[in-house]
């Protein structure tokens, strides 16, 4: 309870601070508030559980994912100080909306009632529709916001219909009751329940950008302001996956839904990686790489067992760290290249900023899954999980796709470590950005060498 109150109040306070147009204070208060929320969750202070007649439960699972989201949000706010330095107005609103969205994220990973699932998905998404259009004079940003809103509404409609059907079949919104229903049903057929699950999973799959519900993500990633893109691909993705797993973790899934998940996994792995090969714009590349990682995460969903939540947690946490760092590096390089987003803008990075290039290298290697980085450990654990549960051929495909993944990441590495032919504007790194990039770069190696540090 305490943390929900704190975050909601924080958002409102940030909006008020915006009236004074004091940017430093806004970011400072935002970060302080988030750290406060972190402490509240970590110390378990007034986190009564269950809450509101048992529709919300801040169990270990919910708290772990919440902590990751908050840490990533703090890193993004630190980056925001430099990112919004040149922006004239509405800065406080951006921070406030991110905080509101984060609140939705916290709710979504602690629901035990499907109504909360729907509400929190909306709380998570509606601020994002606004944030995606944050650059009001940019055509692409507006396009991104509109596309996101339109497709997001469809997904919400699917989700709502699905929930209604599930309610129709089970006469309850309570997750435990639905689980009991599915266990009792096991093996039997119930068309309404089945259809309800299909539509619900489709609605959630939209949020995690699983194929074929991914169409929004490349355009939105590209059009949205980079900070918001980073927010979507880390905090929102983490929240959506936490919710997805919470939804299906204890359900006795009917065979048809299992098949749907396997097909979705295969398609996501395949399409995400293959299409990423042809991308030359870094943000689009990251969008497809994000889809590809969704595929690997979905692989962990197949035939879940007791280790799955921990694997998901580790994967999402380390993925978020690497992604945040890379988006910051992108912003800096993009500035120096006057708005260009082609991967060649990284050229000469190693010559001009060796440490930043090395940190970017570590993060890219982590995304690619090279040993001793966290990404390797994450992929490795997913493979172990899916092989243990008998999905040999899907894992073979995933391994092949991991190779494809290495290819497009290594192309970026190659650019960063190739000398620039002609002189361009130097890439300037503000101290705070330097700090965040270093934290991310070092963290992916430390967590790769000592994976025990990041567990639920």
């Amino acid at each position, binding site marked *: 309870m305490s943390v929900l109150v704190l975050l909601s109040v924080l958002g409102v306070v940030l909006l008020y601070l915006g009236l004074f147009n004091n940017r430093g204070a806004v970011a400072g208060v935002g970060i302080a508030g988030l750290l406060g929320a972190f402490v509240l969750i970590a110390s378990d202070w007034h986190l009564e559980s269950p809450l509101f007649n048992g529709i919300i439960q801040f169990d270990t699972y919910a708290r772990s994912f919440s902590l990751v989201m908050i840490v990533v949000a703090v890193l993004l706010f630190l980056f925001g100080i430099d990112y919004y330095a040149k922006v004239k107005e509405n800065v406080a609103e951006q921070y406030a909306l991110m905080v509101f969205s984060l609140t939705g994220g916290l709710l979504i990973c602690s629901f035990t009632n499907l109504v909360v699932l729907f509400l929190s998905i909306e709380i998570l998404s509606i601020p994002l529709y606004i944030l995606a259009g944050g650059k009001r004079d940019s055509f692409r940003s507006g396009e991104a916001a509109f596309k996101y809103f339109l497709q997001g509404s469809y997904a919400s409609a699917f989700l709502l219909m699905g929930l209604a059907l599930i309610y129709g079949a089970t006469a309850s919104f309570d997750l435990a009751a639905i689980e009991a229903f599915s266990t009792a049903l096991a093996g039997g057929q119930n068309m309404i329940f089945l259809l309800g699950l299909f539509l619900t999973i489709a609605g959630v799959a939209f949020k995690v950008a699983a194929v074929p519900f991914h169409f929004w993500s490349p355009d939105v990633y590209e059009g949205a302001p980079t900070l918001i893109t980073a927010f979507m691909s880390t905090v929102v993705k983490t929240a959506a996956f936490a919710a997805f797993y919470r939804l299906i973790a204890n359900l006795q899934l009917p065979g048809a839904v299992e098949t749907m998940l396997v097909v979705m996994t295969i398609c996501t792995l395949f399409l995400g990686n293959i299409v990423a090969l042809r991308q030359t714009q870094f943000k689009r590349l990251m969008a497809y790489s994000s889809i590809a990682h969704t595929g690997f995460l979905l692989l962990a969903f197949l035939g879940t067992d007791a280790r799955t939540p921990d694997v998901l947690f580790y994967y999402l946490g380390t993925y978020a760290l690497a992604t945040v760092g890379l988006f910051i590096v992108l912003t800096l390089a993009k500035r120096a290249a006057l708005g260009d987003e082609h991967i060649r803008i990284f050229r000469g990075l190693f010559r001009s900023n060796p440490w930043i290039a090395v940190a970017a290298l570590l993060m890219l290697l982590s995304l690619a899954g090279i*040993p001793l980085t966290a990404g390797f450990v994450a992929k490795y654990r997913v493979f172990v999980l899916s092989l243990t549960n008998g999905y040999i051929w899907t894992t073979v495909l995933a391994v092949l796709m991991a190779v494809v993944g290495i290819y497009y990441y290594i192309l970026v590495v190659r650019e960063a470590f*190739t000398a620039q032919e002609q002189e361009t504007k130097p890439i300037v790194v503000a101290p705070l950005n330097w700090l965040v990039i270093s934290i991310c770069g070092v963290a992916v190696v430390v967590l790769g060498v*000592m994976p025990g540090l990041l567990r639920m």
Partner: protein
Amino acid sequence: MIAALLLLIPFLTALVLVSLRPAQARPIALVSSLASLAVVLYAWISYSGGTVIHYNLNWVDAWGLRFVVGYDGVGLLMVILTAVVFPFIIGAGYGQQHDRQATFNGLLLFTQAFLFLVFLAQNALLFYIGYELTLIPVFFLLLFWGGADRRAITVRFFIYTLVGGLSLLFGIVYLLIQSGGNGDFTALTNLSIPASTQVWLFWALFLAFAIKLPIFPFHSWQPETYYMAPLQGTMVLGAVMLKMGLYGVYKLVFPIVPAGVEHWQTTVIVLALIGAVYGGVIAFRQSDFKRLVAFSSMSHVGVLCAGLFAWNAYGISGSFYQAFAHAILVLGMLYIVGAMQERTGTTDMSAMGGLKGHAPRLAALFLLVLVNAVALPLTQSFVGEWLMFAGLWQVSGWLTFFALTTIVIGAIYMLYGYQRVMLGPDRTNVTLADASVRDHIYLVPLIAVTLILGVYPGPILELLDAPVQQLLSSLSVN
């Protein structure tokens, strides 16, 4: 202690070189590699057989990753090989013009540290980690200091190797699940995997090594990469990196999927020999000296792999013995390539000729390196090749005949190459310096090693004998 020193000396020196970038990078690197060599020689002297385990620590226990390092005889031979080769690789830099010496030598030492990790690891995952890590410094060596087209070729090399690497990871994960999460080689060796599984698992494990070696038809990354790489990079690739492939087969494939090996033995030998003959024939057609060395390496490696898969005491011992010889040979040949390039400014043989008149001593040194390449009796290669052919003979007479033709082809292209460079009319129209003191310091020890081990192979064969016998007897028990 020995294992810790071997891993830390190159790694820490490399860190210092890369981060502080001292001006005297090469001497520092050289001293570091000599220190490693001293440690290894001490390990060799104090080695008294069996498997020595230096450390046995939990790392991430939950998924079978444990820090177990040590060596048996074969592992020790590989460690010796790595330690012997690196001072020469770093020393070869004295003839090369590079910018950013510190980074360059730092990357070389990183490679050495990771190679030590590969050869010392007694845990499959630790082995895999080392195996993949060696790629990273080499990737940058090629990307920063390679020749024309380096960007495309480097990426191709990287991807090719990682295809194998991930397939290996898949195989290891599969094995780990079978063994209940214990990744130590001892545990994996004791698994009893159904023969039908072994038939496909063999390729999951072997593909990585087939690409690394490389054998036909997984070789297409190799010639261009060897050609494009900076001289010292080619030395790393040819002298030690590919030996990881042989060692991996010995460590991960033979003891764990013996039924798979039995099933595919003939196929692999045939593929390897096709590669050997094919590489030899193409080497003959090359007009570029460095390309000739690249294809000759491919040809030699094919025979190495065939010998290994003969799968008997002669074949396996011969293959590892020859691996050592091949490393020395690659160093010598490539050093000559570098020396020629230094003098004539090219590696194109059609622009050379008649150099013997200018540089008689260099020509003599070249010839002495060359006799090892053609496996003349009393050289190290002769011992290795003889053992391998004896091993192959027990498998099939025809295959042995096929393998023997590579010796003839090898003699032809090597001597033909020598002829084009050293003999005939003088086409360079420049006066060349003869072999300098530096060339002698470099080449004479290599030649000495070749000849001494050619006459007296005992010390190395002793290392190989016990572990190979043990491997084979454990197989016959099963």
